[in-house]
């Protein structure tokens, strides 16, 4: 069992917003929902569970009004739900991530105290629980249209990684140059030779990134193969660059 430290956190992305630079503490609590079922005439408590879980996520840190940062994400508490992904072990292909399919921004507290740095706390509402995923493409910047087939990621020691589907998440934090849009695909392979399209994310525009919403969580049906890669391509414009990450979650066998 390995131990991990705060310096290893690779990224924390809400839509296109990067939270890492202003976060000092995260609390992620998953609770099994219980109903008390003991009845009159019994002396010992009894509990029943459907298996449903409740996830709570809170974030402490510094007030930061950087572009596409913490304050921009939470000021005014927008009602748009966005995917959230945290990479607690680092930013490299194959490392574990926590994927939250759809989160709301429900509480934002700014603390200003004499002699102290301004602080900010936020609270999320979690819809769809938390998915244990891996990084298929680490957060990084790419230029011309290409793919990572030569630098694929092995997501499972055995093939296939799973047969019961799963999900994938995309976060785009920058799209520069003058492209009209950028389309990113997740691919998978049985043999590390041919990579078939698994998910084609909706095209992302510069306006999506500026609005903080350039992200998507998508479900995957059927088999997910052992090797995954990503591909990206642009429409229109010139000198494009895109900064993004893709994660994938494989539904465990029952």
């Amino acid at each position, binding site marked *: 069992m390995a131990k991990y430290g705060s310096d290893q956190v690779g990224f924390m992305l809400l839509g296109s917003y990067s939270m890492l630079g202003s976060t000092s503490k995260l609390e992620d609590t998953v609770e099994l929902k219980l109903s008390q079922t003991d009845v009159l005439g019994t002396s010992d408590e009894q509990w029943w569970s459907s298996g449903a879980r409740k996830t709570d996520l809170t974030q402490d840190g510094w007030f930061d009004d950087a572009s596409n940062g913490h304050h921009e994400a939470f000021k005014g508490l927008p009602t748009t739900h966005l995917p959230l992904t945290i990479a607690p072990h680092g930013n490299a292909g194959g490392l574990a991530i926590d994927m939250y399919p759809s989160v709301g921004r429900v509480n934002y507290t700014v603390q200003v105290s004499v002699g102290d740095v301004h602080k900010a706390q936020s609270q999320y509402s979690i819809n769809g629980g938390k998915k244990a995923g891996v990084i298929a493409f680490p957060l990084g910047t790419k230029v011309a249209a290409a793919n990572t087939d030569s630098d694929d990621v092995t997501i499972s020691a055995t093939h296939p990684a799973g047969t019961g589907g799963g999900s994938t998440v995309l976060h785009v934090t920058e799209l520069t140059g003058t492209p009209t849009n950028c389309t990113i695909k997740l691919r998978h392979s049985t043999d590390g030779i*041919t*990579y078939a399209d698994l998910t084609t994310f909706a095209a992302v525009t510069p306006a999506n990134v500026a609005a903080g919403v350039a992200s998507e969580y998508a479900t995957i049906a059927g088999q997910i193969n052992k090797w995954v890669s990503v591909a990206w391509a642009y429409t229109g414009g010139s000198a494009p660059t895109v900064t993004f990450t893709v994660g994938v979650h494989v539904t465990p066998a029952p």
Partner: protein
Amino acid sequence: MAKTYRATKGFSCPADPESMKRLQSARKLEAGEKREALLAQVAWMDVEKGAKVEPYNDFILRSLLENECVEEVKANG
């Protein structure tokens, strides 16, 4: 008569037999400069769903079929 295939989904694969050989050789190596050099010389081709596909050898055909990327186009279909 050579069989004709159609892409059932978008995919990418080595673009030619030489790229295929380089990729296979690279996969057998541990991470390092030699492996990276070989991988950098692999040309990839992107194929859109519905495109006509002419596999350049049996190995790539097997890979395409195993990954369910192509289907044979019947003469009367």
